[in-house]
């Protein structure tokens, strides 16, 4: 469960202070499917960064799964991220020199999971995104849709309760985009909280709960 209370995020741009987020109050329950929409510069990405603990709010409090994470240091945040949150990015963010299997394995290496267990979970994850015949391919040998499926397998390998997808279809053709969204929605049906950030109205409308952000406020 995500509970944001009076969250503000200020940026200093020259002499001006910009309110990227202005007193946001938002509660997202486990298993929800929620889309966040809004024009560029509205604060969607900042909200995503705060939720995903990549960024810290200037004020306000954030409780993630009944735990106040507002004052956590870098390494504590890394651990919380690792265990609770899976990321899916517009530009995939795969490590170019690693194979499909190795990219998917990475979060488990960072978590210190033993090699034997890693191997089992990786092959299961590869099968679940239908890439068994591409396990040893490097990202540059895969299509965009395949890359995003690798990214999804990587995001879910630690069995996080929350999936954050930032424009997951932004770089894909519409057919691959639909495939990816269906994959994500399927995960949501397995009780994973899915937060989808998008420009695409049709995509946003698929979500059960829709949030719109303008000028750092939810409206």
């Amino acid at each position: 469960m995500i509970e944001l209370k009076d969250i503000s995020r200020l940026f200093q741009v020259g002499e001006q202070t910009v309110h990227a987020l202005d007193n946001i109050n938002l509660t997202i329950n486990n298993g929800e499917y929620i889309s966040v929409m809004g024009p560029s510069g509205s604060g969607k990405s900042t909200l995503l960064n705060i939720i995903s603990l990549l960024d810290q709010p200037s004020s306000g409090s954030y409780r993630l799964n009944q735990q106040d994470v507002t004052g956590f240091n870098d390494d504590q945040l890394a651990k919380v991220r690792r265990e609770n949150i899976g990321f899916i990015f517009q530009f995939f963010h795969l490590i170019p020199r690693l194979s499909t299997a190795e990219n998917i394995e990475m979060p488990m290496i960072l978590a210190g999971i033993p090699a034997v267990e890693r191997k089992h979970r990786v092959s299961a994850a590869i099968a679940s995104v239908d890439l068994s015949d591409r396990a040893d391919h490097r990202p540059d040998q895969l299509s965009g849709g395949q890359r995003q499926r690798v990214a999804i397998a990587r995001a879910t390998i630690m069995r996080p309760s929350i999936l954050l997808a930032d424009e997951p279809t932004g770089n894909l053709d519409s057919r691959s985009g639909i495939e990816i969204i269906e994959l994500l929605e399927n995960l949501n049906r397995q009780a994973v909280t899915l937060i989808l950030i998008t420009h695409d109205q049709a995509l946003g409308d698929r979500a059960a709960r829709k949030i719109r952000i303008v000028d750092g406020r939810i409206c």
Partner: protein
Amino acid sequence: MKDTLNQALTAIFAQKLRAALIVLAMSIGISSVTILTALGESARSYIVHEFEALGTHLLIMLPGRSETTGGQPPIFGETPRDLTLEDAEAIARSRYIAAIAPVSVGSAPVSALGLEREATIMGSTAALRRVRHLNMAQGRFLPQTDIDQALPVCVIGQTIKNELFAKQSALGQWLRINDRRFRVIGVLSSEGQSVGVDFDEMVIIPVASAQILFNNHSLFRILAEAKSKKAMYQAVIDIGQIIKRRHDGEEDITVITQDSVVNTFDEILSALTLTVASIAAISLVVAGVLVMNVMLVSVSQRTPEIGLLKALGASQSQLQWLFLTEAAILSIAGALLGLLLGKLALFLFQMLYPNFPVILPTWALMAALLVSVLTGLVFGVLPARKAAKLEPISALAKR
């Protein structure tokens, strides 16, 4: 641990040229350190050995006092009293001296069977063999006789033997030196040069015979062997007192102990080795800076990847170790390659100069390895810290 190593290795192999350049720089540093240290060490041990071959407790007495205080020379000129056979006999009676070999040296034509050449004639006693550790190829050395007994016998070196008695045995033949005849009783085995004295071109005759031959009663020097290393220093004092008694209260000889010569050379050459190695070590530091440079470039090139790793839950220490391991692997690879190059160069050097003993001391090897790994780590810390401290969002945003 193993995973960190794996990750670092794949990262290195992803940028082969970069890795190769770093390794090359490091290896040049290491190989120059090892080569220079080895050459310095070898020169030192070569010279020390050379002097130690003179005999372990050797004392060398020269007539005259070498002044070390400087200042004006005395107006009347100090005519040094000669060292004589009697002086040698008196010194031989010292209880710290095990053996004594008076030496007089001259040059004279030697001939046999119609062949003639110029040779260095050394007059000495049977004790010379013990004091200078000479080995015989044939026959025997000078007989044990009274010091003033002028026997007409001689011992010759290899070159003399080959040139005057080319195809036949020299033993028992007559050798003419100036106008006197000496019977050859022994041939020295070839020793090569020993501190500038070439025994191969030498004819050794009893010291009393040499004094008659050259009509000269002074000795060139006296070689003595002390009974032990400890006795050597007491022997120096004792010899001084004996000479003082015999030379009207003047201690007008110079006594050189072999270990003082060895120590001096040892110190000079050790200092030289250290200096040369330190100069070479600068190249290691340069290599270290290069490692840092390349690692920094690598960090900025891999900023998105670092951001991703952070997003996936990598802690600061994990990232730091990842980059440190990379730097360490590159340094170690460089060090090993450098050692290999160094060994190869030393091997080639040994092929060119087989007589010069080339030794690479283990301490130098270890030190070079240690220093390279340390430079790698020290210069790797800054880039690694930079990577660990990157803000994940800004790192991810950059692409």
